[in-house]
């Protein structure tokens, strides 16, 4: 292993799920340049749960969108599973959960979850079987025949998570998925997401502006700061992988939350 690493430096890099090096994104470079991202370095190992946290305008969503091939960097390099974001997208390496559920109102819950499978050319029967499995995993068995407007906001977002996971992508990207939900629903979904990650250990890149959410869910917390959008601190969580909501009242949790808060405050100076 070590020999291989030394002889070909790329092999250890390509083992990374996400590898961002010196990436910058400048909007409007000629007239009024806006440094959305400045010299970002980020490495995400397979199986990690990484949260990007920071105030609005710090570029956390932009960074996620760059990794998902929804935005393009102006300099630097980004590799997803060892290939460019474009190729990773074409090989369906990641599932993306947006801030809003973005369910198609003319499709039932089941048909919404089968959508990506249908696009990938899976047979109807296979798509249905797989989608039902995923709906059960997010606790929505029995709701497959309903239409999106018949569900609550939290249930809709769970459908969208089931949809993102339906084709078993290696990486799950989530852009403030619970931002629009009330705190009680949010806590419950955080717990379910944590359990989902426990079972599958899928790589997750998670954007949030909630310290509690980031600390509770993540194995690694990336603190970002605006103008220009940059990473001010990367904190590896000392918390155990096995977590429950009660953990949030423990000293270890509070200490970590404090550290994140300090880093956020530092970023503002």
């Amino acid at each position: 292993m070590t020999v291989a690493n030394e002889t070909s430096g790329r092999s250890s890099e390509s083992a990374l799920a996400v590898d961002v090096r010196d990436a910058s994104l400048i909007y409007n470079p000629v007239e009024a340049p806006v440094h959305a991202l400045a010299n970002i370095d980020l490495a995400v190992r397979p199986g990690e749960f990484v949260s990007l946290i920071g105030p609005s305008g710090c570029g956390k969503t932009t960074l996620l969108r760059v990794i998902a091939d929804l935005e393009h960097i102006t300099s630097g390099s980004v590799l997803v599973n060892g290939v460019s974001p474009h190729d990773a997208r074409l090989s369906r390496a990641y599932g993306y959960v947006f801030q809003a559920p973005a369910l198609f109102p003319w499709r039932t819950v089941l048909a919404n979850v089968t959508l990506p499978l249908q696009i990938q050319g899976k047979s109807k029967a296979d798509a249905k079987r797989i989608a039902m499995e995923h709906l059960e995993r997010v606790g929505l068995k029995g709701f497959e025949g309903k239409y999106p407007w018949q569900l609550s906001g939290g249930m809709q977002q769970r459908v969208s998570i089931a949809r993102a996971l339906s084709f078993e992508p290696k990486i799950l990207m989530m852009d403030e998925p619970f931002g629009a939900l009330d705190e009680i629903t949010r806590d419950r979904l955080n717990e379910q997401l944590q359990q989902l990650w426990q079972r599958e250990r899928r790589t997750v890149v998670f954007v949030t502006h909630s310290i509690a959410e980031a600390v509770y869910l993540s194995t690694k917390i990336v603190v970002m700061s605006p103008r220009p959008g940059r990473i001010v601190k990367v904190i590896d969580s000392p918390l155990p992988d096995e977590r429950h909501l009660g953990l949030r009242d423990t000293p270890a949790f509070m200490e970590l939350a404090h550290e994140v808060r300090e880093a956020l405050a530092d970023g503002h100076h």
Partner: protein
Amino acid sequence: MKYARHWQMATTKTLTQRAMHDWLPVVVVLMAVVLAWYVAAWGLNAPGAIERVLDEEAGYTQMELFEATMTMERPLMPAPHQVAMDFYESLTEWPVDSPRNLIYHVIVTGQSTLLGFCLGTALGLFLSVLIVHSRTLDKALLPWIVASQTVPVLAIAPIVLVVLGSLGFSGTAPKAFIAMYLCFFPVTVAMVQGLRSPQKIETEMMHTYAASRWQSLWLLRLPAALPFLFPALRVGVAAGLVGAMVAELPTGAQAGLGARLLTGSYYGQTVQIWSALVMSALLGLALTGIVAGVERLVLRSRGGV
């Protein structure tokens, strides 16, 4: 038992209430229209009746004048019951394949309207897909499409009929062409808007699934555009009917509701004109009703959206 009866009474009450609610406005408006029609017939026909029917020297009562205005052979404005009688006789006293039966003309006009409507809808869908997918075509086609509608159909129709006639197309085809000419426009405009209605988040989601353009069109853009399509279809089918009738005017007027209108005005048969008018209005209502029915079925099959 007591409760059951109570409940039954409550439902019958609400049913009659519902009928009142649904039909009363329609009936009231209908009665107002018929009343206004009678008043207009009386007023407009009076001078003609005095001149042609009544003996001015011998004198006449107002009642006689009223009766005369209601029963004239070729009134300026036929009374509703005259139109109704003509309508009824045309439907009952002549076989369906006779030019004296309005149903015959409905079939002729309806055929070209429906054919033109289908062609126009297909053309509208095709154009809107092209426009939405190509910026160049958007700029190149849209001004021509708008300009095409500023040219009066009445001017276009004879040209089209002559050109198509010289190519060997006569009968339904040229009329369907004019109907298509009027149909495709509302469909194109509505579908361009509808196909562009998906939000950024939805198109980006399809992008993350690496969906092809065709898949995005078929799975996202078209279903999202359906609520825009149906109102355009209702407008389109009515416009197509006007187009088909206008196209019947310059052909020498052999068959169709438009031809019926024209022969009526040639021979001063005002009652015939009016019953043809009423029939074309009924045909228009029926066609838009069919489109609305299809709309309801389609939207219900996808959860009412």
